[in-house]
């Protein structure tokens, strides 16, 4: 184990036992979990992560029951167990629940729970954001699932294709889907921001980029994928909901719209989504395999290549879901080629795991059983995936049960089996008790047999012509026995999950506590004490290896005795370390906020906006949005950018760190930057829509409709860019401590932003663009309104900064608020510039 000369070492002498006891008492006091009803105000990652995980599993069970109902219906030809309408709702909700309410949230849940431990951090940098995301998820998920009990659930399939969902389905089902899931997607993006910043900035000192656990690499990649994949769907949701609610014809061909735009936006999200749910499970495998092979992972660099490479290539596959829509052969060829290429990195990581198992001394365990079963199953699904990636084959198999078979092999093998294995692996860490190896083996064999009996025949039924999403079938097709076998298999699979569930839930009160680090793993999460303490890590270690528990001498003792960083909480605050991105050099002692109910209020009111909007109660939704804004501002005001009582803090080992940091070294700046990348992606998706119409349709823009003109858009653009300049000036004046000039700049920036927004609206307004007449005025209005809404948010942010300064919560030295707002305005300027170029400069280029 080589390291740089002068690398920090733990204290040679441990503090006296009395000092250690006092330190521990103060740490426990700072990090204690609230009790009684206040327990639900907890924001610590260990509580929120646990609730998140349990909620995700509840939704998983709900989705599983829906699957069984479908299999009962399809067990026999011409069955009438379910009506067609009910069946449509159930298959739609099964897909929706599994993808949006289980697969993505479970990754975020497990990561919130485990990532800080793996990084030796006390918590993630924005614990209240995690809590807010969780409550949004719970409210939104319950709302979406609840619709099924009122016969109001969406029934357009989990990809909600218009015009089926825009012109042919009455009721509020599609609205529930569009608004309910948009709400949940916001929560997913919030968690992604949190996790990315966590991996980049909250690693323990010394954990250079070549030493981080592979789990963290995958989470970094998946977080980035979410930031770029979810916004196109949110953009699509906005367009489809506006069409449904206000008759703006984005997907109506009669008025220049195009249903294919939805398919593009959905699958730009939807295909990366498959990898977003798959890679975190690979990440779990990457933690389990070296532990049970008793050797470091083989090909760490290759696994990183696979994670990053898959992340990129997965964005070049979306059209392979659209091979039968009549696209030019060359387009199909391009996407088919990328679909084949993604098999390379996917395969590489599998070979790395197999190589690790080959060179190691493998210890048998249920965890490994699920990993190996998952790998084998996933490979079968991957190979059928390569088959459907070939366009001529896809033309035959499209929309048949072959695809259903393929995707379940991929998702159950690639995602769910490793998660179940991960539960067996990490359950002792969370509860200090083992799950049963015997029950685990029974569950595994039931699951793997059930999986194959259910889904293997679907390849045959599909090739024989059984279409997916049709509520019954005729005996003439000759698939009766195959369907019956599938249905039997689904109950075998479900019984495996029942055994697993029983094992998790059964009382273990009489079983002894496990010994610490039961699997003899080498990564930091296994520092957790038995029973676990709320502080995360007794002292934050200096890391010199990929497997520090195994490689660094006396490592656990040194952590436990407080010989490393931050062994104390003298001031009673919750604190963790922020480090640099590449070499994890300490740069800040970050204070994070504690329990609160304000995040619940923020989530409830945010949910109110979406839920009330579903029922077109626009006034109530408006009131809810004002209340949500008030709650979020209150949360920011009381819980962020505290001015500390002293500049620096001694974090032990001879280091003192600043407590307050602003700019690119600060976690808040990174969060804003990453959030705005996602925001820009949504905006670019709307612009993609504009150019999509222009490319495909001769009548875009239609004859007889003038554009928004040049004068008003350019005037609006200039005013908003001036507002941007004034924001930069305000930041400068604040730093110079020129209070008068600072307030002057802020007020001028606000006035210019109001005037600029007004001018932007005047463009389409003055030229009489009617958004219901044709898609051209509709998309221009959407782009303008998007920009104006962002200007509105920018105005609120500026006024917030002025108020912070007036209240002495922001000063020349402590200027994180205005620094982050300026960063927002940089993106705002880009938004404005693109808007003006497109709507004023582009409309009549042909």
């Amino acid at each position, binding site marked *: *184990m080589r390291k740089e000369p002068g690398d920090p070492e733990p204290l040679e002498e441990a503090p006296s036992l009395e000092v250690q006891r006092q330190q521990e008492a103060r740490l426990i006091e700072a990090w204690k979990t609230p009790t009684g009803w206040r327990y639900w105000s907890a924001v610590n990652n260990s509580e929120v992560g646990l609730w998140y995980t349990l909620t995700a599993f509840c939704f998983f069970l709900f989705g599983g029951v829906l699957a069984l109902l479908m299999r009962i219906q399809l067990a026999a030809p011409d069955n009438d167990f379910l009506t067609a309408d009910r069946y449509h709702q159930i298959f739609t909700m099964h897909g929706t629940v599994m993808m949006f309410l289980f697969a993505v949230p479970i990754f975020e849940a497990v990561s919130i729970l485990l990532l800080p431990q793996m990084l030796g951090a006390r918590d993630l940098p924005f614990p209240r954001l995690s809590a807010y995301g969780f409550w949004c998820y719970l409210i939104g998920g319950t709302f979406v699932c609840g619709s099924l009990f009122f016969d109001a659930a969406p029934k357009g399939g989990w990809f909600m294709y218009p015009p089926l969902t825009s012109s042919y389905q009455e009721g509020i089902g599609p609205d529930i889907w569009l608004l309910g899931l948009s709400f949940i997607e916001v929560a997913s993006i919030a968690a992604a921001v949190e996790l990315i910043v966590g991996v980049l900035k909250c690693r323990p000192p010394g954990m*250079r980029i070549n030493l981080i656990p592979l789990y963290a690499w995958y989470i970094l990649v998946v977080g980035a994928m979410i930031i770029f994949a979810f916004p196109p769907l949110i953009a699509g949701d906005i367009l489809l909901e506006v069409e449904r609610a206000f008759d703006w014809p984005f997907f109506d061909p009669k008025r220049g719209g195009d249903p294919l735009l939805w398919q593009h936006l959905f699958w730009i999200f939807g295909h990366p989504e498959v990898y977003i749910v798959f890679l975190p499970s690979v990440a779990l495998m990457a933690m389990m395999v070296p532990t049970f092979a008793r050797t470091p992972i083989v090909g760490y660099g290759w696994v990183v290549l696979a994670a990053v490479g898959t992340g990129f290539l997965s964005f070049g596959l979306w059209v392979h879901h659209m091979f039968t829509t009549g696209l030019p052969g*060359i387009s199909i060829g391009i996407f088919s080629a990328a679909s084949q290429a993604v098999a390379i990195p996917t395969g590489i990581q599998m070979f790395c795991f197999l190589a690790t198992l080959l060179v190691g001394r493998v210890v048998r365990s249920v965890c490994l059983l699920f990993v190996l079963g998952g790998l084998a199953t996933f490979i079968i699904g991957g190979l059928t995936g390569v088959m459907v990636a070939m366009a001529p084959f896809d033309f035959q198999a499209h929309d048949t049960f072959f695809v259903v078979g393929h995707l379940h092999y991929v998702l159950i093998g690639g995602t769910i089996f490793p998660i179940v294995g991960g539960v067996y692996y990490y359950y002792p860490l969370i509860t200090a008790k083992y799950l049963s190896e015997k029950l685990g083996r029974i569950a595994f064999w039931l699951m793997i047999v059930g999986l194959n009996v259910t889904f293997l025949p679907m390849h045959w039924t599909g090739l024989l012509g059984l279409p997916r999403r049709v509520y019954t079938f005729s005996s003439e097709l000759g698939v009766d026995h195959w369907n019956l076998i599938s249905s039997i298999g689904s109950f075998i699979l479900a019984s495996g999950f029942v055994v697993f569930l029983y094992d998790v839930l059964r009382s273990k009160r009489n079983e002894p506590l496990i010994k610490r680090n039961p699997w003899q793993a080498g990564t930091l999460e296994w520092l957790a004490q038995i029973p676990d303490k709320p502080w995360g890590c007794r002292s934050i270690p200096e890391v010199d290896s990929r497997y520090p528990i195994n490689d660094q001498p006396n490592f656990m003792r040194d952590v436990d005795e407080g010989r490393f960083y931050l062994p104390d909480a003298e001031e009673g605050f919750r604190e963790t370390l922020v480090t640099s991105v590449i070499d994890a050099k300490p740069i800040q002692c970050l204070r994070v906020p504690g329990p609160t109910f304000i995040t619940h209020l923020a989530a409830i009111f945010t949910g109110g906006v979406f839920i009330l909007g579903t029922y077109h109660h626009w006034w109530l939704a408006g009131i809810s949005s004002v209340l949500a804004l008030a709650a979020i501002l209150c949360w920011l005001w009381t819980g962020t950018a505290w001015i500390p009582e002293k500049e620096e803090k001694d974090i032990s080992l001879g280091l003192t760190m600043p407590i307050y940091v602003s700019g690119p070294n600060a976690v808040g700046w990174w969060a804003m930057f990453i959030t705005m990348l996602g925001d820009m992606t949504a905006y670019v998706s709307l612009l993609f829509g504009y150019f999509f119409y222009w490319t495909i349709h001769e009548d875009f823009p239609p004859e007889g409709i003038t554009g928004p003109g040049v004068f008003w858009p350019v005037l609006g653009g200039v005013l908003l860019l001036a507002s941007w300049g004034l924001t930069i000036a305000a930041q400068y004046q604040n730093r110079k401590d020129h209070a008068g000039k600072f307030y002057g700049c802020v007020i001028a920036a606000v006035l210019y932003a109001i005037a600029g927004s007004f001018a932007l609206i005047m463009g389409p307004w003055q030229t009489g663009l009617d958004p219901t007449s044709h898609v051209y005025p509709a998309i221009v209005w959407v782009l303008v309104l998007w920009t104006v809404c962002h200007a509105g948010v920018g105005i609120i942010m500026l006024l917030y900064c002025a108020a912070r300064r007036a209240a002495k919560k922001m000063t020349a030295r402590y200027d994180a608020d205005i620094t982050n707002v300026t960063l927002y305005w940089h993106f705002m300027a880009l938004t404005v510039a693109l808007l003006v170029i497109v709507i004023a400069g582009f409309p009549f280029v042909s």
Partner: protein
Amino acid sequence: MKLPPHEQTQSLWILVASPTIWAVHFLACYTTAAVWCAKMAETGGDLGAARWAIGVYTAAALIGIAIVGWRGFVRQSFEQVPPPFDADTIEDRVRFLEYAALLLSILSAIATIFVALAAVFIGTCD
């Protein structure tokens, strides 16, 4: 071995350089073909100039990827130390990032060629 000072500072962006070139190439090929087939060519028309454009994009992309990959190869291989690059040293961190950049360049080059092959085998907008 002591690294020259400019190699002490690295950025994560080096990892995503080659895949980003792939992504830009991919989007350029897709949009060129889509716009050509929708706006320029008759139904079932010849890809013509669009194929040449894709050829030019591909050459440019491969040159870019080769530069990143070569840089990675040279820097990861100083003193001929083999992986796993798992020491807590600046040298190993440099080697690791450059090694990963090299591997990603190889993958990006293969994926770029895959995409370009579509234009080799398909000559029309059918």
